[in-house]
């Protein structure tokens, strides 16, 4: 519940959402850390069909649990959408569950700019250099079609926070394109967005071969929006991309033509 306290600062309830799958090693610590952050009243684990003890541990730690509605791979976007839909906080924070150095301050840093009224959506970034898909796919494409978003150091970062209501105004991509998709769509809606440096993030790196699907889906999410926003001619794109192979531009029945 939003309440006015001393001065002009507004305090809001915060929900922290962790998408997860087979993360029993991390879940207890992640939930406890999230509950320690100021104003966090709810922690949600959106499980992607774990076969280990992730769900039971999460419940024991007092988290709300839901299994993601559609067990597709990669279902990151489905999980994030379910998390946003189940949450009751004024602010929703999404954090990777397997951050080895996760602290409550790390989570607070994400949503504090919203509490201070400086932003409605916060994208987290880290000290380390941005990843390979970010540098080789996301940034060049953003520079081409959405140059105003090219200033973001890590546009694919999954550590984000936003007013709950803004997540109900946009569609979530199912897979890896979800983060950049949200960034573009929220920017188009006129949402006030900032990037917040969260410091150092200790996180497992994906092997190069595992990045092919991710790169494809990120490119697809950006190109689909570029067509929708009439930055690319649709008939040209369809003709050109038909040589690439099957690509779902999501244009059917969406009234983009």
């Amino acid at each position: 519940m939003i309440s006015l306290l001393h001065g002009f600062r507004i305090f809001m309830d915060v929900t922290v959402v962790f998408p997860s799958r087979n993360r029993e090693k991390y879940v207890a610590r992640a939930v406890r850390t999230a509950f320690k952050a100021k104003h966090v009243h709810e922690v949600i684990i959106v499980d992607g069909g774990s076969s280990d003890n992730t769900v039971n541990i999460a419940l024991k730690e007092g988290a709300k649990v839901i299994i993601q509605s559609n067990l597709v791979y990669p279902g990151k976007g489905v999980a994030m959408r379910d998390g946003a839909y189940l949450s009751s906080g004024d602010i929703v924070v999404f954090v990777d569950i397997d951050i080895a150095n996760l602290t409550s301050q790390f989570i607070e840093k994400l949503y504090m700019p919203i509490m201070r009224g400086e932003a409605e959506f916060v994208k987290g970034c880290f000290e380390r250099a941005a990843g390979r898909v970010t540098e080789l796919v996301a940034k060049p494409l953003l520079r081409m079609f959405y140059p105003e978003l090219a200033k973001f150091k890590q546009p694919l970062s999954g550590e984000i926070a936003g007013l709950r209501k803004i997540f109900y105004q946009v569609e979530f991509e199912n897979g890896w394109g979800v983060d950049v998709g949200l960034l573009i769509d929220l920017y188009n809606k006129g949402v006030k967005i900032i990037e917040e440096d969260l410091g150092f993030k200790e996180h497992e790196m994906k092997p190069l071969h595992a990045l092919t699907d991710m790169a494809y889906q990120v490119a697809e999410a950006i190109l689909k929006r570029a067509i929708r926003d009439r930055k690319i001619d649709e008939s040209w794109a369809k003709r050109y991309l038909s040589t690439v192979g099957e690509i779902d531009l999501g244009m059917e029945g969406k009234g983009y033509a």
Partner: protein
Amino acid sequence: MRSIVIGGGHSAYFVITTLREIDPKGRIIIIEFTSEKIEMLKKTFPYAEAIQQSVDRVEEYIAENRSLIDVLVSATDSDALNLRYAKHSIKNEIPMVIAVLNNPLNEPIFIKENIRCLINPYKMITSKVKEIVNKFSVNTVYEFSRINGGIYALKIEDTRILRKVQSFILKKNLPFFTISVDGKVRASSIKNIEIGDVVYVVCVDKNIRDLLEKIVEGGK
């Protein structure tokens, strides 16, 4: 009957057409989130009212119209929303609240939240695969919504299973009937059950689990 169906997708289609079949004169209101779908719903279901609501206004709508609703079915493509709306509707004392699951794994979570009227469209996949592939299994033919019981089908594969099933039915005095390999329905006499028959028995699910433990080592 006044019904509200939340969602305008695949599951909702079957819910709406069934509600119409049950009560052709009943009022059906469909709540959908996107304007494109609203137009499509108006064309597909001309007898229903399709209204657009944002995700976070649905609860308000339910609360405001609670006295006018007999049945509420939450059939969106998100189990998170179905859980949220069903919980809210129960809290608002809607007489009948039904949730349609997208992911069968969410069934225990919904039950824990006291959402008893659950439709799990994927349950049939499990029982059908077992029926086709497994040597012995119990298939759930029908599950009662309000008690943990149902109508279960058991295939009599051999003499050992035949004896166990006969003794189970006799001991519990359960109603049953059998269907033979050639599709004939047999009288309900224990002695008439033969190898190859499928026995349909009505009981609580605990009985079935006990029987399975006796037949299959470690249960199934």
